[in-house]
């Protein structure tokens, strides 16, 4: 479904080319449909860059990224929004709008593509149920706990029924209880048929999952094990 082929990404730094950073170097791997993959590595190992490349936010310096055999790099700028609707994203800092309620934050993702009010109502309530927040729709992000905010963010990522969810450190700001809940939620989403790629530092989370683990180190893929463990 997703294929990274010898992908290299270098950040040029300043104009003279000093401070050049090689964020990804010759990275190749594939992701099958309905897979659950943990992406582990230290900060700066290239996990986020990998996600940004997959979303079409950045272009690789060499190699290519295929999404359903379409070269992401060749998608026109005006068509990138359609790719982004097929990929749900969840971040450590939730990225919710504080001026909107949980319901409105989720509905917003449908509003921007011009969905009807009925469609929005039906879908938003459905995903609020999936993430276990049926009663929190009217709360503003400030009134929600970290775990609840992350659930809202996941609900928003789910609203387009994406084929893949990219979760970039979703438990980074959460305590172990909430972390475990979020991971359980991602597993549930995975079981419902969505591919999940989870970037994390959390050793326990990865070790308890017992799923495929890809380990990155300084931009290189150093380990890819089907039933992996967190080893850095």
């Amino acid at each position, binding site marked *: 479904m997703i294929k990274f082929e010898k992908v290299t990404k270098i950040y040029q730094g300043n104009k003279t080319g000093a401070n050049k950073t090689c964020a990804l170097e010759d990275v190749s791997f594939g992701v099958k449909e309905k897979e659950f993959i943990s992406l582990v590595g230290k900060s700066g190992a290239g996990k986020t860059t990998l996600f940004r490349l997959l979303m079409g936010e950045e272009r690789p310096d060499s190699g290519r990224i295929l999404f359903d055999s379409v070269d992401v790099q060749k998608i026109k700028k005006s068509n990138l929004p359609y790719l*982004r609707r097929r990929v749900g*994203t969840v971040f450590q800092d939730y990225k919710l709008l504080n001026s909107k309620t949980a319901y409105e934050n989720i509905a917003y993702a449908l509003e921007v593509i011009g969905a009807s009010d009925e469609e929005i109502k039906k879908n938003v309530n459905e995903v609020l149920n999936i993430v276990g927040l049926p009663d929190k729709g009217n709360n503003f992000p400030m009134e929600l706990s970290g775990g609840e905010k992350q659930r809202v963010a996941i609900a928003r990522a789910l609203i387009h029924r994406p084929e893949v969810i990219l979760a970039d450190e979703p438990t980074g700001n959460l305590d172990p209880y909430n972390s475990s809940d979020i991971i359980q939620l991602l597993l549930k989403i995975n079981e419902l048929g969505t591919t999940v790629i989870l970037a994390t530092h959390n050793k326990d989370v990865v070790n308890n999952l017992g799923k495929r683990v890809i380990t990155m180190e300084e931009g290189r893929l150093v380990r890819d094990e089907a039933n992996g463990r967190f080893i850095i």
Partner: protein
Amino acid sequence: MSLATVFILMMTIFLVTSLFLFKHSSDQVVTQLQEKVDISVYFKEGSAEADILGVREEITKMPEVKDVKYVSQDEALKDFMEKHKDNPVLIQSLQEIGTNPLLASLNIRAVGATQYAAVANYLETAPFKDLFEKVDYYQRKSVIERIFSISSAINRTGLFVSLLLALVSFLVAFNQVRMAIYNAREEISIQRLVGASNWFIRGPFLIQGIISGIIATVITCLLFVPILLLLNPKIEALFPSLGVLQFFFNNFFIILLIQLATGLFLGVASSLIAMRKYLEV
């Protein structure tokens, strides 16, 4: 939308409109004056009518000349009496002289205002110039030229100031959109995240520019009417046949179009360029 943007747009539109009206008015004044121009050639006393008619024939042959009117001494006297019939002192003194002191003349009208110089030149060097007492042209010429140069100087200055104001309003509007983009950066990043189309993201900023332009146009237009009504009596007193007010209402839609075009162009262009520079989609 900010007050500063609308205000500076209003000033620009106001100036552009004023310039348009002034251009029309000054053109009209110059045309009116030019229509009044003619060259009068006065013949020495005792010149034979046959000579004068001969000269008239010669002058009529010039391609620049539209028509030449012969005013005989008697006709000149009749005109004079007619003109000053309410002035008994003048009439009386004329009667006391006993003879007709007025000179026979030819009134020459050229095809266009610019051709008078050629006609005047010709008269100066003509073989029959010894018959002339005087050629009356130069005084009016200098007045016309002065008005012409003043009005074109005002037009030029107006155009320059308009362009300058347009640039300032462009920069103000540009900065407003830039700040709006900066303030909405979080929302924009989320819009991109959830797959909003590029024009969905850009739309609000473009509409902001359009609305600024429209509001500035409407306010300026509404302001212009009372200002013109207020100033019109004074303008009429100076130039009675100008009809600025009438021109404004007769060409209201053209003027509105000019105003709207100025406002929209500045509003939209500044938004588009600010988006291009600061709004990454």
